[in-house]
């Protein structure tokens, strides 16, 4: 399988390379993208999955863009053969138009990737869709962000700026559901995999189930201040119905952040209040409790081309006492506070063409951890190669990373950018 992917990859990119100048020069728009072959395999057997290979694909990305006087258009599409699921697939990453109806306003309409907030792989006020499946199997890190179908309006005033994102349709995360990656199903009370994929009931009403994301922000002498608001739904399953289907209950989030130079590095603080609108009293065991979230981070270059980033992240359950009182017999209790520490170490070598990085999530309160070592080498301006691993470890199969232990994997990717 791996050989086939790589041979195909080579053949295709050789063809692209030899003809690149010909066909691009005549096009009425800019065309770029890449071809990538990727392969990943579990480092241990997972009794809930029939195959050890959970990532094997050959991917072509096409990015077309065109700038006119009045608007810019962008279209980015991934086409890939997914050998782990034995299917051809497409993922439209972006398809939007951007224009400026007035000096102080930008509009971006269509399918787009959206990110805000100050965390490094930790998200409090960024409720745009994430793709944890891609993230955990070894696809490139930017695939952690899934696209939204949105209208984004940005207003730039003298005193502050305002982003307003409206998604007419709810976009959930691409969460771990048993396909490729096994997880602990709290409704069934055990780990489940491909034979018992999580069925979920997503809000599907157009307009009725729309989402609104808000950010007011301002830069004060290099310090970035922001206030956030969100009205929508839990982005990954935030509850279960009595049929055992995952649900996405109503959610509102209010938050704030600040980021700027601190000592010799960059410091950031972000807070968020997750208001579980369908269970504000915290008594319904089938719906997530409200939470207060807090993040503090610091990053610095310790030596030339050696960076360290540290974060402390807290999830505090608002009504833990009521959660405990209403917990069904036999169900697994959550702690009132979930503390997470993250460390990012990055060393660049060989004129920055070789990057060694390790990102670690450690959750002392859950006794679990997630390690992401990545070695990335830029062979040339066009070719790059990556090897890495996703290592989950935990004492307990009910915790967030602990439940993923059997999914630990190693992977490799080769990419040709054009």
């Amino acid at each position: 399988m791996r050989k086939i992917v790589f041979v195909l990859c080579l053949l295709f990119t050789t063809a692209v390379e030899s003809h690149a100048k010909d066909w691009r020069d005549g096009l009425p728009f800019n065309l770029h993208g890449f071809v990538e072959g990727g392969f990943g395999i579990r480092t241990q057997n997972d009794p809930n999955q029939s195959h050890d290979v959970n990532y094997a694909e050959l991917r072509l990305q096409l990015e077309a863009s065109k700038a006119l006087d009045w608007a810019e258009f962008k279209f980015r599409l991934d086409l890939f053969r997914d050998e782990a699921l034995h299917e051809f697939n497409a993922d439209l990453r972006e398809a939007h138009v951007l224009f400026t109806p007035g000096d102080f306003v930008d509009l971006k309409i269509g399918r787009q990737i959206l990110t805000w907030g100050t965390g490094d792989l930790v998200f409090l006020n960024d409720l745009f869709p994430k793709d944890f499946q891609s993230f955990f199997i070894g696809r490139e890190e930017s695939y952690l962000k899934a696209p939204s179908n949105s209208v984004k309006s940005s207003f730039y005033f003298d005193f502050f700026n305002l982003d307003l994102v409206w998604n007419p349709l709810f976009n959930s995360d691409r969460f771990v559901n048993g396909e490729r990656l096994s997880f602990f199903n709290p409704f069934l009370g055990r780990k489940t995999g491909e034979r018992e994929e999580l069925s979920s009931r997503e809000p599907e009403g157009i307009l009725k189930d729309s989402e609104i994301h808000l950010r007011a922000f301002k830069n004060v002498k290099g310090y970035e201040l922001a206030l956030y608001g969100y009205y929508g739904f839990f982005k990954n399953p935030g509850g279960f119905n009595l049929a055992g289907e995952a649900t996405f209950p109503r959610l509102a989030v209010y938050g704030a952040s600040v980021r700027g130079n601190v000592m010799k590095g960059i410091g950031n603080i972000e807070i968020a209040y997750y208001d579980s609108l369908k269970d504000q009293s915290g008594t319904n065991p089938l719906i997530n409790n409200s939470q207060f979230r807090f993040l503090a981070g610091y990053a610095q270059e310790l030596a030339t081309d050696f960076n360290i980033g540290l974060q402390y992240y807290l999830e505090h359950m608002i009504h833990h006492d009521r959660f405990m009182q209403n917990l069904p017999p036999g169900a697994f209790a959550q702690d009132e506070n979930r503390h997470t520490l993250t460390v990012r170490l990055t060393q660049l070598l060989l004129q920055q063409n070789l990057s060694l990085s390790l990102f670690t999530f450690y959750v002392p309160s859950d006794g679990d951890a997630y390690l992401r070592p990545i070695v990335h080498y830029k062979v040339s301006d066009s070719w790059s190669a990556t090897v890495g691993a996703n290592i989950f470890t935990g004492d307990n199969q009910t915790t967030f990373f602990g439940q993923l232990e059997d999914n630990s994997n190693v992977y490799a990717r080769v990419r040709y950018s054009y």
Partner: protein
Amino acid sequence: MRKLFLILGWMTLGWIGGQAAESPAGEQSLSVQEIVDRSNLAAYYEGKDGRSHVNMTITDSQGRTRERRFIILRRDDKDGGEQKFYVNFSRPSDVRNTVFMVWKHIGKNDDRWLYLPALDLVKRIAASDKRTSFVGSHFFYEDVSGRNPADDTHELTETTAQYYVLKNTPKNPDEVEFAYYMLWIDKTHFLPIKAEYYDNNKNKYRMVEALEVKTIQGHPTVTQARVTDLKSGGHTVSVFSKIQYDLEIPESIFTERYLRRAPRRWLK
């Protein structure tokens, strides 16, 4: 665009000095401070703002080349003071539309941002170590946002028919990789034409040279520069083109709005 040249090529021309110039030939009477001042103004603060297309060719010790292509915008808050830079990459393909932005401060750490389009991510970059390679080239970050002249002491060691030759010694040697560097400043237009960096054993290990100077809008401007790493044998050549001064670039270009959406009008 002398300034842009500096952005990418040179650092340092300090304006410190203060001591009277030792003039071995006894042929002029400019103090070190005056030389450094004039060089600093000529090199960093020409025009209110500027734009250049930059094509960098990075050659490693084995002769393999890589390319970096970008447009750089620069705006002065005030002469001799803070500046803002906006760098928009077009090559290689994997960094296309990546933006690097610097608010350069005097006497404190710069503010630096990086915009990664695939993630729509605005990232802050720690700015403590400025003598780190800029996008994998032999130029340093400090060459982009400029080295504070107050970080070095300056001494005029020689005056030739064409150049003032300055020896520059860091005040905090622990923060830099050089023990000192020599700078050749052209006596006619005060542009630095060559810099040589020495280690603690007085071995020359790094060299920055102006390969071509042209007059643009009345300003002598370096249009080609080269950094050579004498230890590894690698080098980077930067070619500046479509240089323009005094475009009246608004300050608002150097904000998050234009990190997330490129200001096409100013990137021509």
